[in-house]
């Protein structure tokens, strides 16, 4: 009766994403799971781009989904991110005062 279980109780499921990292030139395929946190999603996307096509910057990264900045500790399942959805990963650059 897995249909009755909450996302947090089910085995992690694969969630292939369409992702873009900051100023990179192309969208890429990045597989994550329902159990991954946004910090892990950001790292998974950055792995393919940061220091390879986009210069690494000394800032935290934030996942933007559906126009919303998501907290680093929320999971893919809890954020409602589904297979083939798009996420953007940006450097969380503090605004200069």
């Amino acid at each position, binding site marked *: 009766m897995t249909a009755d279980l909450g996302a947090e109780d089910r085995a992690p499921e694969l969630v292939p994403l369409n992702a873009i990292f900051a100023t990179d*030139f192309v969208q890429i395929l990045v597989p994550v799971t329902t159990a991954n946190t946004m910090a892990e999603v950001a790292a998974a996307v950055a792995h393919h781009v940061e220091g390879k096509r986009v210069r690494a910057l000394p800032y935290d990264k934030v996942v933007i989904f559906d126009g919303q900045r998501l907290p680093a500790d929320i999971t893919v399942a809890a954020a409602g991110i589904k297979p083939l959805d798009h996420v953007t990963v940006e450097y969380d650059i503090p605004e200069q005062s």
Partner: protein
Amino acid sequence: MALLKREEWQGFVRDVDWTYSYVDDEAVYPEWLSGTGKVPREAWLGWEESYKVSYPEYVATQREKETAAYAVKAALQRSATFDQLDQGWKSATKMHFGGVALVEYAAVLAELKMARFGLNGSWRNMATFGQLDELRHAAITTFFGHEFVGKDPQFDWTQKTFHTNDWVAISLRNLFDAMMTAPNVVDLALQLPLTFETGFTNLQFVALAADALESGDVNFANMISSIQTDEARHSQQGGPTLEILIEHDPVRAQWVVDKAFWGSARAFSALTGPAMDYYTPLEHRKQSYREFMEEWVIDQFVHTIEQYGLKKPWYWDEFIRGLDIWHHALHMGLWFWRPTLWWRPKAGVSKDERAWLAEKYPNWEKVYGDKWDVIIDNVNANKVEATLPETLPWLCVTCHLPACNATQSRDGTWRVRDIKLSYDGKTYHFCSNGCRQIFWKDRDNVNHETLIDRFLAGQIQPMDVGGILGYMGLTPDVMGDDPDYEAWTRDYVGRAAEGAAVAGA
């Protein structure tokens, strides 16, 4: 008995038709193949080509062309010309041979379809010559490319490309199946002879012939110039067809031409753009890709369609903006995913080459320079592995090319934005608004699955880079790599590489 003069027999010889006694017209010219649509059947009686040719004339002319093309080839075969050609230029020719040889064969089938189902005897007659042309093009392209297999196994992809699931091949199959294999002959005549051949092959053949001569590749220039002389004749099947369609169904005429132009422009930005602006040696470039597009495609094609009463396509502004973006991004994609290619893509970003790019494309440094700088620093730090892919680029559902078209924000920054569509329970991603609109209007057509679709459906095993390369048919002896890293990185040796993979990012 005296022979009839040409003008006395030409008229009825080129326009032979039958009066049926056992079947009706729909049985001979079914709608799904002949596609008359809203055009009354009798309107097609007015179809007339502007340049008329008879079979004896055709054979005599083609014989001369063949003799000339093969004579030049035979003479050059004994010289060392090929060995002295630049690797970048050789890559442009490998891309052309693999990307074009079997498209010419698909065009044979397309011309045969018009030769059988065209709605006027003159049209069917003209298409018969057209299929003979395309048969010659398939043969000459395959033969000329095959000659080099012994010197370089990548030329084997002249024949092989279209039999593989390489992503470039999938993209081209998708385009040309939509343009030639699937449509009825009326839509086919508007897409292939009118839009693709009149609008675009000029670019491929005239521009590349000029670059070939500059690069010292007389054989290649000779081959494509020989082909181009046929295009000028059989491409005129489009004009009379458009004239009749536009009178009875202008909305359909506009849509079919718009769609074919967009698909052709996307494919050319992937293949001809990098060949002209990156692979051709700097000193041999005649004009930039943008300049050629403006002169040979935009000015001439827009002039042509406006003469017939069509408007500029709805996506015109997006297309024009793309002339500064599409092929530069696709070049970077081709280079970064170079193991998936059957040619050796030259990065082409030395200081001199970048100065040329910045002059021709004022935004180039801003949009692409920073990313090439990171790649250059990794190469110079002996971290070439950081310049190789570990996942797939996302491929557009419509053009099957990477989704990589940056647009400028109001604040001046350039970003690639997601362009998506949720339909029938699935989310689709596109490279551009033009591709999204075409998908939406044509969503019930048969479309090829993208490589992403195939990968996620488990058709590619194992699900890693090795599995993907195997699925594409790439073997280590042909897998693409940069022909000369030092050529474009030595200008930058010794500079600080902060923020590259070498810095431990």
